[in-house]
């Protein structure tokens, strides 16, 4: 039995980002906020979203949390994000 090794890479080149469709499941809230058309949809469906995501504990994580991943913390409700999803899909792909 041989032990595995995890050797370092040689040099850094920025990885290439693939285009994506915005969604409540995979897109961080911070990204949705940075796209005005997307955020307008979110605010329309959850008018209190800024207050709900404005707490000091949650703010640093908006770059990591999608709306769906906030479900477990009770910040948003399932029915609202389903409505948002359908509208985000219509916006098409983003780089």
């Amino acid at each position: 039995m041989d032990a595995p090794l995890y050797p370092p890479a040689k040099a850094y080149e920025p990885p290439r980002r693939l285009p994506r469709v915005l969604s409540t499941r995979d897109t961080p809230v911070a990204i949705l906020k940075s796209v005005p058309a997307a955020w307008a949809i979110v605010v329309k469906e959850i008018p209190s979203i800024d207050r709900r995501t404005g707490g000091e504990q949650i703010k640093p994580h908006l770059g990591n949390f999608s709306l769906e991943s906030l479900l477990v913390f009770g910040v948003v409700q399932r029915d609202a994000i389903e409505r948002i999803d359908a509208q985000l899909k219509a916006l098409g792909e983003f780089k």
Partner: protein
Amino acid sequence: MPAPLTDRRSAMTLTAGAALLPLIGIDTASAATKTQPASWPMRDIPFNAGWRFHHGAGNGLEQPGLDDGGWRPIDLPHDWSIEDIPGGHAPDQIGPFDKNAVGGTATGFTVGGEGWYRKHFRVDGYPADARLEVLFDGVYLESDVFLNGRPLGENRHGYIPFSFDLTPFLNRAGDNVLAVRVRNEGRNSRWYSGSGIYRPVTLDVMPADSHLDRWGVAAWTRQLENGTAVVEVTTDLVTPLEGLELVTRLRDADGKVAAETRSAASQSVSQILSLRGPRLWSPDDPQVYSLETELRRGKTVLDKVVQAFGVRIITFDPQRGMVINGKVTKLRGGCIHHDNGLLGACAFADADERRIRLLKARGFNAVRSSHNPSSRSLRDACDRLGMLLIEEAFDVWHEHKELQDFSIHFRDRWEKVIDAMVRPARNNPSVIMWSIGNEIPLRATDQGVEWEWKLANAVKRLDPTRPVTAGLNGVLGQEMIAGPETARPGFANKIDNASTIFIDVPGYNYRLDDIEREHLQHPERVVYASETFAREVFDYAALTDRAPYFLGEFVWTAMDYIGEAGLGATAFLKNGSPPFAITGWPWVNAWCGDLDLIGEQKAASLARDVAWGLSPLELLVQRPAPEGTFPWVANWGWPDELQSWAWPESADKPLTVRLYTSAERVELLLNGATVGQKTLTPEDKMKAEFAVPYAPGVLEAVAWKGDRAIARRRLETVGAANSLRLSVESSSELRGNEALAYVRVDVLDSAGRVLPDDQRAVGLAIEGPARLAAFGSANPLATGSLQSTETQTFRGRALAILRATGPGQVRVTAQSEGLPNAAVTFALA
């Protein structure tokens, strides 16, 4: 000039007339208890005794001429944040807790500030050319170190070891003063950090020219084949002179040499140890060797380092998961913070060992040192007791979570932190992965991805034998592709996510529902849950069983800790109000641990016993809600369940009784009459719930498999408090003032049963060579000092922690109004 803290005569007595301990005036207690080497060199000399402490700031406090006679004498480790607030007044200040503390709930309302430490010592017994280095295992937070008024350097990360060469400014013939300024200011932590020199300090004495580089030995098991282990060792040396020899050997637990190799010394020496019939290290059988590294000139040993080593090979693949020495091993993990409960952040070896021992007894085989590198004593305990360990470097990178957190230093000091995490711990067999961060803000941005690459590869340059991990919350970020120069081996030009692209074994925080879905897209990934809610224990147990690529879980947390106050709180809310509460003062501990702050099992731990197969049945009763209210549990919490059938205020009212069981069927009896039965299905997730009108007596649960009763549990209605019981946990193997004794205080009824929900004042008296290090309970609310001889029991229990001041018998007496005194006598140190 202040006088040395220990007189020369005492120190010479300790050295028994030999010139083997020429370091005069230091650490007599510790020195007396360590076996001193018979010749040079001297490494790892405890430097913990005889310090003086001043809580506050000032000018010139590093100057050697300062009269520090009025400063408080202390022995390290020391944490001033766990001490009573000087001049504190209730109700806003209770013991170490201040309602207006800048850290608020994050630090459990404890207080930082500035403190100064000074230590006097002499070195006139040493050769004039000896090199002396001081090593701090951890100081929180910002430290500046001076010798004889001259700055040696500084450190800005609160959890890494750091050292300084004392040699240039040493007074070889007279008094020396080592001074350390420590500042813990602003909002710099999301949990209780403690303040001060909270981990041990040691001194290394070595030749000034050729010596072993600090943490310069890297050993790993390269191959296990045909009953032989091939261990590869690389050793870095400082200015190796001609004609020196490097000797590397492994000794087994009996002290016998198991393998040895010799090479000519050079700047970096690679050696192979071939070990026949190796005793392998694993969580089930943690066989530890001593790895000895000697720099020699002929028969003279110039420098020597001894450290623990375990022969083991650990592999990770999605088909089998984690495999240790050929055996598939699932992670039964718990996250822990660094504090030792009532002791605050103080890293006593006995306290670290106790934590690991308690968790091992509850079936844990892994801990995640969240979110910082652990103490040396914790790693050593993990090695000895067989606890796998994930070391973690950061809670933040370039973007802050708290305004004054480490993000302000990150760009300048990240490499130093990675180095100080990896090199001291890379020979600990318990360490299985290196985590480069926890829930890092903005990690999926371009800048975040570049940091991910830098950190992961910095780790691999220091230790390519372990995978890199990270604790990832939320989503994994945009899909992306790395080129061949940049990617992990085998992952070039493959689709990955921003947060995982340079991570070998991703850890997921609170992502239970994502794991199997993502596996369909990324079957190449080996993953684990780096943080979980306790309430999901049965879901994770099932997932762990069915998914080979899923390694297991780390519950948040395995043990309660100070800070993040009320994270796992329970409360009763008015009927009709939304099911949400914000906890604050006087909550001071997180209350989300399986074990409470003094190490007792909470309800979640009993349920975990069932989920992990330690127990076939557990019986608990939820505390009844007062009229007009309903119970609420925070996300990280567990219902307020107790092993109690003493609810006199709820006569005839239905109480919620929960059974956790691996059996097929359960039966519940009250005073001999069946009050409920249930056949469990997989959808029940090992839980059965009954509403039982309360009547005093005996509540009994029986678990059945077919016609066979496989387990019974009883709860009896206890009577009034009748006595106290003191008991001492297993005695310390340490000696001198490093030794701790844990004394439990239980409140009993006349039948000798612990009162499961009793709170009352208890006082202690201590006679003999020990002093009180801490006294308190698991109560998550601020109730008083943690260092007074008076405390309040919580759920019928309290815990006293004593620190030895010398050898001999110690007698502890407990008293409580209306109860007879209780006493216990034991030997310590």
